[in-house]
């Protein structure tokens, strides 16, 4: 993964590409134990962790890319692929499961023609199954993350979920 010895200025190019991440690294790069925080902030800025971002963080922190990759793939929160404008986090907690979250998942998959972890062709939606959102008495629940903020929807039915996604698609 290292480009040591090459003359293409990739390191400089990367610094330009990730200039929004520079202040984060300035604050945390030398603070021990901050890798997860850095990755979270990088994902907040870019929506996901690209290989380039991992290499850049590695250069700035001195942590090996393999280790960063190891941490990034260990935790459910990190994504290595870009996500759509609206990230659907569909709760698969116990209460949601008992109240039919699998049926909701089927309805979403059918409506958007994607599977868990995939993004729609138009780049609007990504579907991610998540453990538990902690709104168990409103099960089944989903949270939709976007630049508009995080919105939680409860008591979902096959029809209501389609209506919610339809409304978002119209304004997107």
């Amino acid at each position, binding site marked *: 993964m290292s480009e040591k010895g090459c003359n293409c200025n990739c390191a400089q190019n990367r610094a330009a590409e990730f200039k929004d991440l520079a202040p984060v690294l300035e604050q945390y790069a030398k603070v*021990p*134990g*901050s*890798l*997860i*925080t850095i*990755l*979270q902030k990088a994902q907040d800025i870019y929506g996901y962790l690209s290989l380039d971002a991992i290499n850049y963080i590695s250069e700035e922190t001195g942590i090996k890319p393999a280790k960063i990759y*190891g*941490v990034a793939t*260990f*935790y*459910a*929160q*990190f994504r290595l692929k870009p996500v759509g404008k609206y990230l659907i*986090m569909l709760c*698969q*907690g*116990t*209460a949601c*499961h*008992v*109240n039919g979250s699998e*049926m909701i998942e*089927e309805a979403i998959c059918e409506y958007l023609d994607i599977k868990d972890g995939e993004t729609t062709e138009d780049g609007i939606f990504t579907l991610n199954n*998540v*453990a*538990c*959102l*902690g*709104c*168990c*008495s*409103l*099960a089944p*629940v989903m949270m939709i993350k976007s630049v508009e903020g*995080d919105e*939680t*929807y*409860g*008591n979902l039915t*096959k029809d209501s979920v389609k209506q919610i996604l339809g409304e978002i698609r119209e304004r997107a």
Partner: protein
Amino acid sequence: MRVVIGQGSCGIATGAKKTAAEFEKQIAEKNISNVTLGVTGCVGTCYLEPIVDVYDDDGKMTRYVKVQPDKVEKIVEEHLMQHQVAEDQAITEEDKEFVGKQQRVVLRNCGVINPENIEDYIAVDGYKAIEKVLTSMKPEEVIEEIKVSGLRGRGGAGFPTWFKWNAAKQSPGNEKYLVCNADEGDPGAFMDRSVLEGDPHSLIEGMIIGGYAMGATQGVIYCRAEYPLAIKRLEIAMAQAREKGFLGKNIFDSGFDFDLRIKAGAGAFVCGEETALIASLEGERGMPRLKPPFPAAKGYWQKPTDINNVETLANVPWIIYNGGAAFGSMGTEKSKGTKVFALAGKIKKGGLVEVPMGLTLRDVIFGIGGGIKNDREFKAVQMGGPSGGCIPAELIDTPVTYEDINKTGAIVGSGGMIVMDEDTCMVDMARYFLNFTRDESCGKCNYCRIGTKRMLEILERITEGEGKDGDIELLEELAGKIKDGSMCGLGQTAPNPVLTTLKYFRNEYEDHIYNKKCTAASCKALISFSINDACKGCTLCARHCPVGAISGKVKEKHVIDQDLCIKCGKCLDTCKFGAIEKK
């Protein structure tokens, strides 16, 4: 007059923000003066959200429930303008009992105070306990008070809190850490979220007290990233506490320093295990290590570290302020105090319930939770999440204490109670939990990593109608080996959901395997749809069937071709005459 709108995550999910905006609009439009709008956390009656409390000038509170924006105008006109309670929107006497029957220690301020305003917390005797501790108590006296209270860890293990504090105190070293585990990973439990969102100061105060008792000057709150609102409110609360001098240097002129920071978790159930949590705090993969050394000796950055759960710590200010004996007088001999339970699943009134330990499951599920949704038959309650088990209907009179619940094969855990009715398939529940632990196994121990996968495969086979003779025995054998061969609690308890369902619902497993039948009519591969004589021949189902499996003439009974049917259930959803049968 004051209008307070409950805005925890669940309130917001049901539209509390829109309700708040509508109040603001109506109050401005109607030019009403002397009314302030306020925010509070979740009172725990999630099934009644959005909840609006109107406080008259004399302090009298009226609670309005299920206040969607279209109901706001009536409350504004009747209550705010004419000073008449809008009776038909107000909470019923029956629903008042949901909170009325509880005894609230941890949740004492949730849904009462504004979590974003420290003055609200101070007004209800907030930060009085830490003042008492720092001005009149020695660290060992604090630990003694906690010992008297009998407080045990509320995160799952139920370990005596004073013992952990004392171990960290006895550990040599000047640099010690107090870590709060706010990574509520058990799917189906949400009491910690409610405390973090509704009463963050009680956690902060509990941590300062704990820090003083064990000699830790730094605290870390490890909070799950799925709780953005909790993190936001904690940050606000910490900033306010710092400004008031409750956090920082020389608190109450005692010479004691304590400060706090938040670390956002990144989503890993195994980080509920102490050593994995510490690894995660240090920026590593959250993988447990062998104990000893215990964190009390070598924890965060190899320094003595104590880890407590949110609910445990939120109890502490109350215990110190009211005395350990007052707390110990509630509950049973070995399980003292109150415990918060998260009621969810097929329950009529879902939400958070705080009761003295020792009440029976029946008291909680039927007495407070109102019984089963749609008056179906109660089948089982799942306690303890992926480490726990299913307690069957015949054990409904089991007292909720650590000891009695353990005897059933389940655990109290963090207090999630998922109620199930006759439509819930127990084999599918076991499959669900094994899928969870398979995903969440960190992979360090072979038995946990591979064993849970193999168990899941067997369970998948059974629920898909491919179960074979010997599967149950194989599950039992694997379960024993995974328990013995795993280093941490995740692996050691992972087989519990299978073992308890096998213990109480073995006949369901046998039905799946030998009779190819799912009693709960939930496993797709084992059910079939048919049309009965109630069919009017309206053709609606035939038009909605995605595979054209339904045929029949207009105004004549239709039939389903079982070979074509993909069991999607569309016909059942669309039929208006109840003519579709699922078996």
